[in-house]
């Protein structure tokens, strides 16, 4: 599965470790929420980077105590119809100030890239190669945004107000 | 594609065809014996056993680019082998709306 990170196709350094499977001695891993919550401290002491795969029906508040020590949080889109992880992403980024990797996993198509980026995702396990290759192009599709989110893009309303301001200033 | 699980449930009680809507324009189409689609019900492959229906549907489902949402629909066979829609819904799909649209032609 191709991984797009910070806008570029990259090799995925993280290994998904299934529930119950043996944990590799070192190297970056993404573990399930159950495994993580069973003994977070032990896992965080491990030498490799640690990430958690967080299901979309679990409150992200449970992750808050560990946010500054997690290298990645993978939020899940069981199908691309299921949009719960968008709320989780915004809460993690905007309310809890998480600034590590936030990756989208599951059914990820190019048609969600803009939404996901705006919600705070910066890494994407993309289903189709063609979609991964089209990332940069897709991100250029929109130049106008109506809502403020944590991604800092200027909203249409802000642009209008600035325009008004500069118009009235130049009069 | 329809899952085999769903396909197992298929049971037909009379002559049937597979119908769908053509992807590029949405037109009503029927699966033909030549593994294609036709807008004419007369061209459709008529099946009479559940196994044949299932096979025809599986083949139709495999053509996701050609047509959308294939399903099995009942037909009536008239004397001389003429195929007629088997219920009101299919009659409306084959012949168009039942109402006077009041649109100048």
């Amino acid at each position: 599965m191709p991984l797009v990170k910070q806008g570029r196709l990259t090799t995925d350094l993280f290994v998904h470790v299934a529930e119950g499977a043996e944990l590799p001695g070192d190297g970056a891993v993404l573990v399930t929420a159950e495994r993580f919550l069973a003994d977070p401290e032990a896992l965080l002491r491990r030498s490799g980077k640690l990430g958690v795969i967080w299901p979309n029906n679990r409150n992200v508040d449970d992750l808050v105590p560990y946010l500054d020590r997690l290298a990645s949080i993978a939020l899940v889109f069981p199908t691309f119809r299921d949009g719960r992880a968008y709320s989780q992403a915004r809460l993690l980024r905007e309310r809890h100030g998480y600034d590590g990797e936030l990756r989208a996993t599951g059914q990820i198509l190019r048609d969600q890239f803009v939404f996901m980026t705006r919600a705070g995702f910066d890494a994407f396990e993309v289903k189709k190669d063609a979609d991964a290759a089209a990332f940069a192009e897709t991100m250029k599709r929109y130049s106008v945004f109506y809502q403020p989110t944590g991604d800092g893009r200027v909203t249409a309303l802000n642009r209008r107000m600035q325009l008004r301001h500069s118009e009235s200033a130049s009069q | 594609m329809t899952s085999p699980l769903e396909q197992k449930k298929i049971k037909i009680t009379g002559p049937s065809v597979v119908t769908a809507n053509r992807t590029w324009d949405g037109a009503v189409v029927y699966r033909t014996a030549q593994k294609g689609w036709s807008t004419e019900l007369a061209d459709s492959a008529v099946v009479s056993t559940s196994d044949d229906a299932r096979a025809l549907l599986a083949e139709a489902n495999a053509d996701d680019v050609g047509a959308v949402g294939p399903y099995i629909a009942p037909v009536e066979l008239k004397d001389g082998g003429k195929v007629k829609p088997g219920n009101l819904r299919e009659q409306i799909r084959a012949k168009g709306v039942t109402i006077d649209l009041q649109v100048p032609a």
Partner: protein
Amino acid sequence: MYAYDELDRTLINERVSEFRDQVKRRLSGELTEDEFKILRLQNGVYLQLHAYMFRVAIPYGTLSSKQLRRFAHVARRYDRGYGHFTTRQNIQFNWIKLAELPDALADLAEVGIHAMQTSGNNMRNVTSDQWAGVAPGEIEDPRIWSELIRQHTTLHPEFSFLPRKFKIAITASEHDRAAIKIHDIGLRLHKNADGETGFEVLVGGGLGRTPFIAKTIKPFVHGRDVLSYIEAILRVYNQYGRRDNIYKARIKILVHELGIEKFAKEVDEEWKQMGDSELRLDHAAIEEVRSRFSYPPYEKLPHMPDELKQAAHDPLFERWRKNSVAPHKVQGYSIVTLSLKPVGGPPGDATAEQMDALADLADKYSFGEIRVGHEQNLALPHVAKRDLPALFKALDRLGLATPNVNLVTDIIACPGLDYCSLANARSIPIAQELTRRFANHDTADLIGRLHINISGCINACGHHHVGHIGILGVEKNGEEFYQITIGGRADENAQMGTLIGPAVPYAEVADVIEDIVEAYLALRDRPEELFVDTVKRLGVEPFRERVYATR
């Protein structure tokens, strides 16, 4: 009228080009139907019995003549010469080809019209009172708020994949013409003791399989906080709304399962945590949007012009005026409703010729503006009273002066089995037959206000639950049958109707409705007692007896 600026136009064009790319990928097989379905729905494209259906938004029901002409163009160029106005301020085209859709969208985009989020599990067109900005006694124009919410919820990065569709309606008048109580969120604009604008917020209304009347979640949310409060509701819904069963996925089920108090608590907690977010609207932001709504340069005109006095001798004109013309907030002007329910016609349909001609009339008599209401009728919102007689003549020639607004033949009907792939039974021919039965205008006048609503299946697109008489198509052994309810209403006293008895076959529906209406005429205690009030006073029993005694 609202004028899109460069930014709104850019966004629409960007959306069209994205959709063009999605269609291309679908036709080449890069996207499966399963993937594409969600994408096309987000742009108003359904697959119906005969073809694709294309639903286009008419935000808060306001249209310019230029936009209406463009609908006529789309109907002619890409469809079969007509369109269907729906109950949620949209227009639908029934015969669109997928391969041509991007071009149709591009043509519409040129006049600032889009189809974003007219279907799919996202925020739908934010509807409002079709008399917004012109109704006497209105507190303020609710469309400013509709537009603020429209922008905020368009391509929202968090809420474009909700558990199910989400509909908001706003009213700012005492009489609710926007049916806010059957919406996921209903907003009733009012002022608090300090004279500040805000909203009573209702949540969890909806029809369909499990109908609910919306409940008040907060009696007053300050206008500046309305976006953040809606955002809080949506965030709770996005996370906790059911996704296991599409029939239980609407917010009404979540509200019902949690109870309104618990749901309100969840929302309040989320809202508190959001704090003073960027969503707070300052005065300047609200004024920015307000400034882009323009109002016509009304003249100072007499209340009773000579033209009107003279025309009063024409009984046909008078009948139409009494039925279809309503008071305007500016002296000398009127709001004219145009019935799209001619005798024998499909309710809500308009031909390309009618649209073009109506656009011309709007230019001549209504400052180029047209409105669309949830009863599937149109309106000209600013007609000088002196022009009414001339307008009447012109409308009559177009078949748009049927004097049946709010009467028994002003039927709301969904497309039913003639078009819809989900239907059990036909709706339109039932409506057509009923309009023929009650074609005599004197009889219809005698009966008075009576709303008949018809849906072809339990999804309730024809709002049958809230019809004074509701007709619901069901299927029995492959035959079309209809359940009939009475006593429903969609206004500020919204209520679901009560079933009067077993379903009746297609051929008997019109007879049964005639029986019900005759029973009402016999039972009402005075001519002014409306059908719904008689049902309220007497219950359904006397009607049931009348209908089933001989069946």
